[in-house]
């Protein structure tokens, strides 16, 4: 009888450990605004708010430094360097092609919001892209899925006031039933590029911008 109980608990443990194996350890909530003039998109203005426990790491080092202090600049530079090392954790697509970014952000900084650390920066496109009649898609994610990066609300991706009449912006969140998320299907596709199999990409939200 004891063995039965133990066998059942082993199965339970086995199932749970599969689920636990692939979970993110940090959570970042994203807010993004398109940077554009009347005719062209030039970049993305991003605001990344880290979860409180992850933030503790940075806030401990910051102590009670005032905004604009040297230590904030140091921490911002350190985190920004890591973000740049991962190509801003962002992909930007136009007509099925990746749009390139500049290697350095236009501006960046870090601040405290309650118990959370917030990284802000402007991601510049290498070449400004035309708006009229075009459709753009972008995603921000960690391919390894150690960090979950997501828009908590659809309205967290926004357009500048001047474009709100001409363009439309929407956040698409993949659901477990979506084909993109189905491992069973993806595993059968030998021709799928390996980076499409990354867990982080499978969960990544997509932001679509469509202009008239």
């Amino acid at each position, binding site marked *: 009888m*004891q*063995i*039965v109980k*133990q*066998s*059942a*608990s*082993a*199965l339970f*443990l*086995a*199932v*749970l*450990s*599969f*689920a*636990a*194996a*692939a*979970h*993110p*350890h*940090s*959570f*970042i909530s994203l807010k993004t605004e398109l940077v554009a003039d009347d005719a062209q998109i030039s970049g993305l203005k991003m605001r990344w708010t*880290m*979860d*409180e*426990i*992850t933030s*503790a*790491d*940075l*806030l*401990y*080092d910051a102590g009670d430094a005032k905004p604009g202090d040297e230590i904030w600049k140091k921490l911002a530079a350190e*985190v920004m360097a*890591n*973000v740049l*090392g*991962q190509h801003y954790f962002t992909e930007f697509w136009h007509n099925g092609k990746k749009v390139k970014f500049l290697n350095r952000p236009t501006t960046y900084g870090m601040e405290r919001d309650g*118990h959370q650390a917030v990284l802000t920066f402007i991601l510049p496109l290498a070449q400004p892209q035309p708006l009229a009649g075009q459709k753009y898609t972008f995603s921000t994610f960690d391919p390894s899925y*150690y*960090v*979950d990066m997501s828009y908590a609300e659809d309205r967290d991706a926004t357009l500048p006031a001047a474009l709100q009449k001409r363009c439309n912006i929407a956040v698409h969140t993949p*659901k*477990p*039933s979506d084909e993109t*998320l*189905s*491992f*069973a299907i993806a595993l059968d596709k030998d021709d799928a590029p390996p980076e499409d199999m990354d*867990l982080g990409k499978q*969960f990544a939200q997509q932001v679509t911008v469509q202009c008239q």
Partner: protein
Amino acid sequence: MSVISTSMRQKGRWIQLWPLALFLVIAAAGAVWLWQAWPQVLMKSVLWQREVNQQMSGLLKAVAEDPSKAGGSLLIFSFLYGVLHALGPGHGKIVITTWLATHPSKLKSSIGLTLASSLLQGCVAIGLVVVVLTLLQLPARQLHLSSFWLEKGSYALVGLLGVMLCWRALKKLIVLLRKPKFKAFTAHHVHDERCGCGHQHLPAQEQLRGGDDWRARLMIILSMGMRPCSGAIMVLLFSKVIGVFGWGVVSALAMAAGTSLTITSLALLVHSFRQLAVRLSGNKAPVLWRQVGWTTLALAGGVILLVAAVTMWMSAVPMGRGLRPF
């Protein structure tokens, strides 16, 4: 008469296997379900993880405001966090399952191993934070660097343990294979209380276990417990930032208790499967054959640990990945 009794005994043995059959059926059903529901399982686990993360920081903030209200909830929550977090793959589980599956051990001492290593793991996390942040006054970055080296160190210990187990098993194999040749038929044979019946028996399991096993056990505890849990360090750091470090310590200890529950269940499971295997293998095989078999299994255990240690050592990510989001 004897034929009947043998066949009945044979039948009884197969009936005794029913838990194993049931386990296989359930496991197969579970695997099929998992294959189909995998995306949902993943999605749910992410949502839970996010809630757990928020709940933990929320509880610590609540404790900072009013310890009498939230203290109990924090303890229970930390305990459950420990139980669940220990479910993931980890080097400690490789060490304890390999050791218990390939080496004879008593139930009590196995439980002692898991309890001691979980407690050690909790204390290492607390000690690390106190030493690095409070005593040495270093920035949080140093915390992760030290944690990374402790991790490497524990993998090195796993490798050392593997080498030790291999060495012991090899020595034993050589002794086992040589012994009958020159011990049993030696003419100049000094009699003592151990050789009453005129020939040397092979060493019993008890003797094989040996008196120097404390060395292996100590290495198991150290290699499992030396690497601090990153979750515990994060909670300690956060509690320090909001000024309730004492509660962070309590929470880390509750997590260690939860971890020990999971690891101990795993250890019990492996232990009972080994007992079952020992029982089923029975006494039919010749003694020498059996001894060689079990010693070879011990050798395999050592090799598994050695390979696992090398793999983990190579794939340990230096810094950055630990707690910093990038």
